[in-house]
């Protein structure tokens, strides 16, 4: 009995802390979002914060912006990640030297850099007084650095999209590379003998083979960027802001009476994230990306 329960008991302190902080915080937020806020004398339960939020134009503008940024970031990161992974795979197939390993490491580099640093790199590179605009101005391609398009702190969110595309592409390539690594070297030979050129091989064999893993990885990036805070906070504009930033603004800049609204926003955000997580889980189980591969 003791032997059986020992591992669970040993894990209890760690699990207890996580459950208390995570679910405790979430539960506290849920209570406050429904107006239960004893600190300001509110002990009734009501859905006023949700109603107000859903009726405000700021919320919908913020939601549209968040969806757009998350969708475009995931799409760009997905395409870039797939290109990186396929290029590394083809490089690995064609060369036996250590060159491919070097490229592997190079492409994995963004994984080691924190998001905030990634965002800062984009600021330094792409802002109007940044590195790229100065190079273009010096080269005479643009007259003034102010001619360089506004890509950082812009209302569309290009700076945020660029950061996530750069930062998440290696994650996607890392997710799909194991699938590619399981493609038999002999499949290339089979495909060639049956008349497939290099593009046919990528189109007919490589892309369909990685599609399930790619979709799931891209979906994970979507879910992550949908609820991420620091990069949009650094590279976004004050209005419209993405949902997590909007929630932070409501929480810190308003009065205590605005907090239920901020927390309601967090609960909506968490609900959407959980829903998307369930969708990812459903597809990953259904597709079972390596089913039948030996």
């Amino acid at each position, binding site marked *: 009995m003791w032997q059986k329960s020992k591992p669970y008991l040993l894990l209890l302190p760690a699990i207890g802390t996580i459950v208390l902080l995570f679910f405790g915080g979430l539960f506290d937020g849920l209570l406050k979002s429904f107006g239960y806020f004893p600190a300001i004398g509110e002990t009734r339960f009501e859905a006023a914060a949700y109603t107000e939020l859903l009726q405000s134009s700021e919320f919908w503008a913020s939601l549209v912006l968040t969806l757009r940024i998350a969708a475009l970031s995931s799409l760009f990161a997905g395409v870039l990640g797939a290109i990186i992974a396929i290029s590394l795979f083809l490089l690995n197939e064609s060369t036996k030297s250590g060159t491919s390993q070097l490229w592997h490491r190079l492409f994995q580099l963004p994984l080691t850099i924190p998001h905030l640093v990634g965002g800062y790199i984009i600021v330094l590179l792409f802002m109007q007084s940044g590195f790229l605009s100065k190079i273009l101005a010096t080269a005479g391609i643009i007259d003034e650095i102010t001619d360089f398009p506004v890509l950082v702190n812009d209302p569309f969110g290009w700076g945020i999209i660029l950061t996530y595309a750069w930062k998440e592409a290696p994650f996607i390539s890392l997710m799909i590379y194991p699938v590619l690594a399981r493609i038999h070297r*002999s499949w290339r030979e*089979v*495909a*060639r003998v*049956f*008349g*497939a*050129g290099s593009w*046919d091989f990528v189109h007919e064999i490589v892309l369909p083979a990685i599609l399930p893993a790619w979709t799931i990885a891209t979906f994970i990036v979507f879910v992550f960027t949908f609820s991420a805070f620091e990069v949009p906070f650094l590279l976004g504009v004050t209005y419209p802001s993405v949902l997590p930033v909007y929630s932070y603004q409501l929480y810190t800049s308003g009065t205590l009476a605005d907090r239920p609204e901020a927390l309601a926003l967090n609960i909506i955000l968490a609900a959407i994230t959980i829903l998307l997580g369930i969708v990812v889980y459903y597809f990953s189980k259904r597709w079972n990306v390596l089913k039948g*591969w030996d």
Partner: protein
Amino acid sequence: MNDLRIINIEKKYNSRLPKNDSAFTLQPIGLTIKEGEFFSLLGPSGCGKTTLLKLVAGLIRADGGEIRMDDFDLTAVPPEDRRFAMVFQKSLLFPHMTVEENVAFGLKMQKVSKKMRLDQARNMLEHVGLQGFGFRHPDELSGGQQQRVALARALVAHPRLLLMDEPFSALDPSLREDMRELLRQIQKEFRVTVLFVTHDREEAFYLSDRIGVMSEGELLQVGTAQNLRDHPDTTKVAAFLGLKNLIEGTVTNGYFSSKLEEFEIPVPHLIEEGSCFLILRPEAIQLMPEGVIPGADAMHIRGEIQQLIFNHGFYIGKLKTANHQLECSFSSQQAKNMAAGQMVDLMISLNDIHIVKK
């Protein structure tokens, strides 16, 4: 004629070890495979037969020589443009495609319309006994069924040459026999030219019109199964074909004398003088009926039976003569009256004796 001509093709693999100049060399090989012929390359592992197959497929670049078909030089033509097909040791079906899509893959690459290629794929699946399996995925099939699909995939596009690299070696023995039978039947039906690689003598003998025996990167001898077995050119070929009873000796003045001076027999005059081996095929050695004296056209052998082993409906007898260990083949009827330790008199017709150069 769509004969395949392999003209002095050669390939050298360099060793990674600095001291060795080359790790493996495929010696220049010349060979013609006729249209519709079933040709096997037979040899032990590492003898270069798969290298030769891949050179023909275009998957490896040759260091010298030519591959020609229908008088076109294919040496520099990439494999995707050769219109060949190949079945590998593993089925290597694409797991994300259904069986039907796998079979139709070659036709898709030839830009055949979807309806037509799927119709042809279904038809070919019927030929290999997999009717109704088209919508399954490869992992839902057994190893034998997967290899049938691989065969269907290779045949559906009507290749000019079908290359097969030990396709049945991963299957269990009974399944292997079924597949051999199926391949034999299908090859006859489609009249497809086949270049088949195997290390299994039985398989090569059963399937092939002609066989090329390879060893250490060299093509030693080409011939029909019977021709190779009855008249091997060298002891290497004889040993690989599993021929027993190789007796070392010399030919002088029209006579073969064994090294240990036990046997002396006349040989035809066209046999060159010098060191050689006498081959006594076990099945050609006969039990001498009582009271019969062997004539001048037969060789007498006397020895003691050491062991009798039952094998596929007949008995293998291990015989100890004065200086040699021989192997003979006896029917169950003959073996009934024999026992270990018994002395027996045997004979072999001089017409069944074969002498090979050392």
